[in-house]
């Protein structure tokens, strides 16, 4: 099944550069690199703020998974939508969110994307097409299907990408949703970020099949498996799925093999995996690999890459300042947003 979505080298297609290099403009590629750096630094900084007691609760970092988030969102339009997971910062940034408002949310401020009510686990950017992270594993999948149903009717051509993890694929919601989306040929793409573990439980111990993509067969759905740490491969694999979705062909499933460098959440002691395993995956750093590729094909210079990193640094700093200076919600507004305020005529 691997490579199902990968374009065959054809006689007409003698350009053997990676798909993304061929397909996107240099500016867009550089912007993708910027966003991948932004994800990484956003999470590192959030982690730091958490350690220093500035952020409460818990958080799930996606460091090491930047290519699947960015790659899956790369060909989405602002009108396309995503549903995300508890590990959702990367998706949110990849879909175009403003890190200042994200930090504001983590700091529980009124200026946050959820006005301080949601926090990391519910980070969203509805205007930007992110219908929200979700605290319930697989909770966003049926919502994505419903969103796609509405889009099919109200906004033909719009696509919903539903992110979820390997652990989520054992939830009943996954099964019911994929079946429904397939029967109704809805414009939704299921993107599984298979990082090998649902919390401490490896896919081998939780999941009867090696590849999540195998399950697509049960839903009569095309599926692909890609190296989720390879930005270009992810963008490439998304193309047939997007085409299918935009033209009424129905849903697809894409499995991105990747890895999270950090523990599951802030309370993880990493007892279920080895240092070697982690290090091995760190050598496959999706950002470093993307940078090499940009250098190799002359899209960016080392200097430009450094500039990108510096720009990210500044943006993160400003974002944290914005968050810190933002007002707290008022306790008297505790009940606000439970129900829609109805206009009194």
């Amino acid at each position, binding site marked *: 099944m691997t490579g199902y979505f990968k374009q065959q080298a054809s006689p007409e297609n003698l350009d053997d550069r990676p798909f993304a290099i061929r397909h996107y403009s240099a500016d867009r590629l550089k912007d993708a690199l910027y966003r991948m750096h932004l994800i990484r630094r956003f999470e590192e900084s959030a982690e730091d703020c958490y350690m220093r007691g500035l952020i409460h609760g818990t958080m799930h970092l996606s460091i090491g998974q930047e290519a699947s988030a960015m790659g899956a969102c790369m060909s989405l339009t602002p009108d396309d939508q995503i549903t995300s997971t508890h590990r959702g910062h990367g998706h949110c940034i990849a879909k175009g969110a403003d890190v200042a408002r994200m930090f504001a949310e983590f700091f529980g401020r009124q200026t946050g994307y959820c006005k301080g009510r949601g926090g990391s686990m519910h980070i969203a950017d509805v205007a930007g097409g992110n219908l929200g992270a979700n605290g319930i594993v697989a909770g966003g999948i049926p*919502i994505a299907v419903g969103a796609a149903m509405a889009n099919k009717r109200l906004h033909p051509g719009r696509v919903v990408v539903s992110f979820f993890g390997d652990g989520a694929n054992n939830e009943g919601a996954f099964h019911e949703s994929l079946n429904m989306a397939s029967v109704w040929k809805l414009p939704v793409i299921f993107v599984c970020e298979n990082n090998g573990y649902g919390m401490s439980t490896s896919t081998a111990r939780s999941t009867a099949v090696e590849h999540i993509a195998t399950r697509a067969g049960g839903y009569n759905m095309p599926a692909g498996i890609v190296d989720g740490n390879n930005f270009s491969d992810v963008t490439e694999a998304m193309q047939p799925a997007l085409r299918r979705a935009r033209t009424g062909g129905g849903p697809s499933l894409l499995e991105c093999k990747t890895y999270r460098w950090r523990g599951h959440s802030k309370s993880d002691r990493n007892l279920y995996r080895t240092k070697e395993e982690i290090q091995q995956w760190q050598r496959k750093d999706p950002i470093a690999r993307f940078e090499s590729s940009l250098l190799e094909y002359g899209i960016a210079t080392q200097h430009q890459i450094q500039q990108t990193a510096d720009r990210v640094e500044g943006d993160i700093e400003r974002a944290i300042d914005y968050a810190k200076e933002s007002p707290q919600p008022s306790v008297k507004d505790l009940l606000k947003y439970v129900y829609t305020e109805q206009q009194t005529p």
Partner: protein
Amino acid sequence: MNDVSEISYAEAIKDAMAIALQADERVFLMGEDIGVYGGAFQVTGDLVHRFGEDRVIDMPISELAGAGVAVGAAVNGLRPILEFQFSDFAALAMEQIANQAAKMRYMLGGEVSVPVVMRFPSGSGTGAAAQHSQSLEAWFGHVPGLKVVQPSTPYDAKGLLLAALEDPDPVMIFEHKLLYKVKGEVPEGHYTVPIGKAAVVLEGRDLTIVASSIMVPRALDAAGELARQGVSAEVIDLRTIRPLDRETIVKSVCKTHRLLCVYEGVKTLGIGAEVSASVVESEAFDFLDAPIVRLGGAESPIPYNPELEKAAVPQKENIIDAALALASGVR
């Protein structure tokens, strides 16, 4: 004023859905066997023939995803009406209902609304036993973010459904299976019954009976008998479980000084518990001349045997007995 006709509770619900389907392209129905089958209780009836399979959608037997799909569709601008075949199956969808539909607006700081309507055929009396006879409205009444209604008449069934469709938030409608064939006067065309308002359906002096759903006609029957025995009962139809119309209840109890709560759901932690506690917490406390009595469902699953099944939920006779005992209490 609209013409009025005598139609059944099921027909009234269908009428409301037809009006909404006609008036608003965004409205659609979703559920198991609601198309050509017409719904397990023939509520959707021939709507699929009138509005097509795109608006009246048979779904796979997947209650959890069904609820989630309705949520996603609502967030994105449609107005789904999701039919559960039996309210008992809501137990499969509580995640999407209570964790997603009810909380999404709040968790996202008001950035979305989730205007979804879900319909739940409820209650016992059909011999369908423990997994097809429950009255679970109290679960939903406990969840902020949801609105929960329980119509007892064809008029209210139609008016509350049309109100639910105008409501920007998730509205759960608990219908009673035994009421589907009960007829009543229903105006043609569009009208609404406000969500959040109870109705004093019979005025009285000696005690207040707060009832909901099928217990309203039973309470009214009982009130007739009570009147013959010289007891004047005021009957309140709750109509909405959440938000509860405490004002109307409290006002009545301040007048009658006695309260009997009648409901089909399991007594413990059923809606009567909230009615009672709300009254005792209010200014009506000072007017109470007797303990508040709750007549709720038995502390058992609904049994299959017809006699046991009857005994498991309040019947007219139980209401009469409880009311007489309550009204006769001299303090």
